[in-house]
Structures are given as structure tokens and as C-alpha cells.
């Protein structure tokens, strides 16, 4: 996995607390912080993307706005999901009509 240096200054109390955790759990302090940060970032990112996709699905914001906020790849994927979700119901109704005719 590619890594990048990211430095942050932390309050002394927090560093001391981390020392306690590290000793009690017998884990490397940096590794523990990295794991916790990854969990939090993943959760927060998913939560925010969910909120964004809700606004998009409800027609409150447009694809262009999403693209400007989070990039083209995510905006394109949201558009695909919306188009295919609409198409799924429409095609389902067409297939349902055929099923009715055949039975």
C-alpha cells in the first residue's frame, strides 16, 4: 500500500492517554491511531456520501455540483445508480406485462 507522511500536533494529555492505551493493549501507538483513524474516516466518508446521494436522488442537487465537491468518478457512479434504478422499475413493468400475456 502506498503511504504519505501526514504530521499532526496533538495535546500532551492526548499523547499521554495514547501511551496508556498502548501499554495496556500492548500495541504500537502509531498503528493503533492509524487503525482508529481509518475506521473513523471510512465511516464519516460513507455517511457524507450517503447524505450527498440522498440529495441527488431527491433532485435537490445536480450531478455537476457533486462532481465539483467529490470528483467525476463518484458523480458518474451516482448517476449510473440513479439511471439503472429508474430503468429497473420501468423494465420490470414491461417484463411483467409480457409475463401476464404469456400466463
Amino acid at each position: 500500500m502506498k503511504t504519505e507522511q501526514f504530521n499532526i500536533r496533538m495535546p500532551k494529555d492526548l499523547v499521554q492517554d495514547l501511551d496508556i492505551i498502548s501499554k495496556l493493549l500492548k500495541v504500537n501507538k502509531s498503528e493503533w491511531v492509524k487503525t482508529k483513524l481509518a475506521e473513523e474516516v471510512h465511516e464519516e466518508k460513507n455517511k457524507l456520501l450517503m447524505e450527498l446521494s440522498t440529495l441527488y436522488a431527491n433532485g435537490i442537487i445536480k450531478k455537476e455540483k457533486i462532481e465539483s465537491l467529490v470528483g467525476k468518478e463518484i458523480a458518474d457512479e451516482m448517476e449510473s445508480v440513479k439511471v439503472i434504478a429508474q430503468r429497473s422499475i420501468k423494465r420490470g413493468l414491461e417484463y411483467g406485462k409480457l409475463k401476464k400475456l404469456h400466463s
Partner: protein
Amino acid sequence: MENSKNYILDTSSLISLESINILDQILNLFTIITTNSVIKELENFAKYDGRYGRIAKSILKFKKRLRIETCEIIETINYIEQTDNELYNLSLKMKLPLITDETKFVHHAREKIDIYFTPIFLAILIESKYLTKNDALNKLERLRDIRNWRSNIIYLTSKKELDKL
């Protein structure tokens, strides 16, 4: 109109259908095709006692009613798993619609194959009078809870489209 009778399903769609108790009905009405890799994924889920483990066990009871195919991967989509690439190639080869709830899969395959989300079956069942609109909407709500869709695009868009009927 072969496309309206035969569907290729992935693990996510089989789980969705069984979680709202319509897989049995769908198997009575249509030919459902899947791959050995999907069956293996379900067998792995079934080893666990959680919600998905229980659903996977129920699906495996229907194994004999599924048409299981193998398919060589000739064309690969980089962003999706091997199992999904197999299903993608099967859909290309058989020229049949593929049903999944994997958004990444849908996004990367939608220009090349007929691909839909599981709520397609709710629309089919409403139109062919096997479900009322209200039953279908209730099942969509259950699906949302079980799949943890919350207010995602699949749920909101499907609900909006079903509400119009």
C-alpha cells in the same frame, strides 16, 4: 421474448430476494441462472450464524431449482471482483439480463450488458398481479432495512418510481 423469462443473478440479488421472501415465487415464475462461484460465496456466508448466514442457508435449499452455469472470463472489468466478472461474461455470452445490488458493478457494466437492481422483480410482480403495489412497497422497506440501504439512491429511486404506479 427470452429476456423476460430468464435472468442471471449474483449473490447480492439472491440474498435480497430471499430476505423479503420472494425467491421461491421468482423461481416458480422464471429461470434463474447463476454460477458456481456465487454458490461458493453463499456457502461461505452460510458458515456463519448472522442474518446473512441464515439467508444464505435458505437460498442454498433452493440450489436444485437454480440453473448453474460456468463461464470463461474473456472480457474483464478491472474494478470488480472475479465472481462478478464471471457473471458479466455469462451475461455477454447468453445475452440475458443480469440482476445485482452492487453499485460499482452496475456502474462499470451498464454500457455493455442489460443490468438491473433487484427491485426490478417488485415491478414485475406488481404488473403481473402477483403482488399489490402496497405489498411491493412494504417489501422495499424491508429490503432497505435488511440491506442497510438507509436513504441510498437504489431505495429512494425505486420508491419514487413505484409510488407513481
